[in-house]
């Protein structure tokens, strides 16, 4: 055994005694690494949009926006209102989760006015005649420091009267 290089232990380094389980560690790690893109393809990490809707006798609302996003990404939220009766003063009220840690790039069409309603963003859309639709596009960017789970409620009012509300949430990955 004198010709064995220093610090080589043949039982371990040639015969692999005590090392037979090592490949399983690597295989497990490979599966873990593989799981990440697979979950990505399954939209776990965003940002494929989905539709959430709410219906009331006066109007219906569809929100088309991603429920998972990642830091720094740009995304769009589309609010589709359909009036079933005349809405004299439609107001869309967005919960704080829509804006906390988000950069609001643009709102199209621009609302008539903006205000705060108990800490939520109130967007006055104006008059929507019965049977007509109103499509509001809002472009956001996630601030890189914004991480976690946030509630994104949407409420539709006609003046002071609440017509419907929609509960959804967003998960922000780092």
């Amino acid at each position: 055994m004198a010709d064995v290089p220093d610090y080589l232990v043949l039982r371990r380094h040639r015969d692999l005694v005590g090392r037979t389980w090592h490949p399983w560690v690597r295989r497990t790690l490979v599966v873990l690494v593989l799981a990440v893109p697979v979950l990505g393809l399954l939209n776990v990490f965003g940002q494929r949009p989905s539709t959430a809707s709410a219906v009331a006798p006066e109007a219906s609302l569809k929100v088309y926006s991603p429920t998972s996003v990642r830091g720094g990404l740009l995304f769009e939220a589309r609010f589709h209102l359909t009036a079933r009766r005349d809405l004299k003063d439609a107001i869309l009220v967005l919960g704080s989760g829509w804006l906390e840690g988000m950069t609001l790039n643009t709102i199209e069409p621009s609302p008539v006015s903006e205000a705060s309603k108990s800490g939520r963003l109130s967007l006055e859309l104006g008059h929507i005649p019965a049977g007509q639709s109103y499509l509001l596009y809002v472009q956001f960017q996630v601030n890189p420091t914004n991480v976690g789970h946030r509630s994104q409620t949407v409420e539709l009012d006609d003046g002071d009267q609440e017509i419907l509300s929609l509960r959804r949430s967003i998960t922000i990955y780092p």
Partner: protein
Amino acid sequence: MDVVIRAAVAFAFIYLITRVVGRRELSSLQPFDLILLIVLGDLIQQGVTQSDYSVTGLILAGATITLLQMAVSYLNFRFARLRTVLDGEPLVLVEGGRVLERNLKRERLTPEEIAEQARVQQIASLEDVRWAVLETNGQISFIPKQ
């Protein structure tokens, strides 16, 4: 704070993938591997600093990675059992001119690749090799027969 956390996560991720990829792939960089490595570095940098262009951000991320590397190096030095986990262990590939197929298969190596590496070190035949060992850094060291 977030830059430090992101840098630490990036460090752990790099460590994980280098252990997954295998020693041989990392030590023998073909042109494609080199480009892939540069692309990976760029992707990791974007994830760590994101839209932070400040010198403070650079120092925070750089210092975190440096400290973590020093910590791993110290753990390697201090704890022999941890060394096998963090760095791996040598693997005998050829003994007395005989190729150990089982060990080659374990590292996804072929006898042709071993022979190629032997030729690089002026050894014409694997029969002239007394020991060929895949070291923890991915290099194959050859000890020729006298």
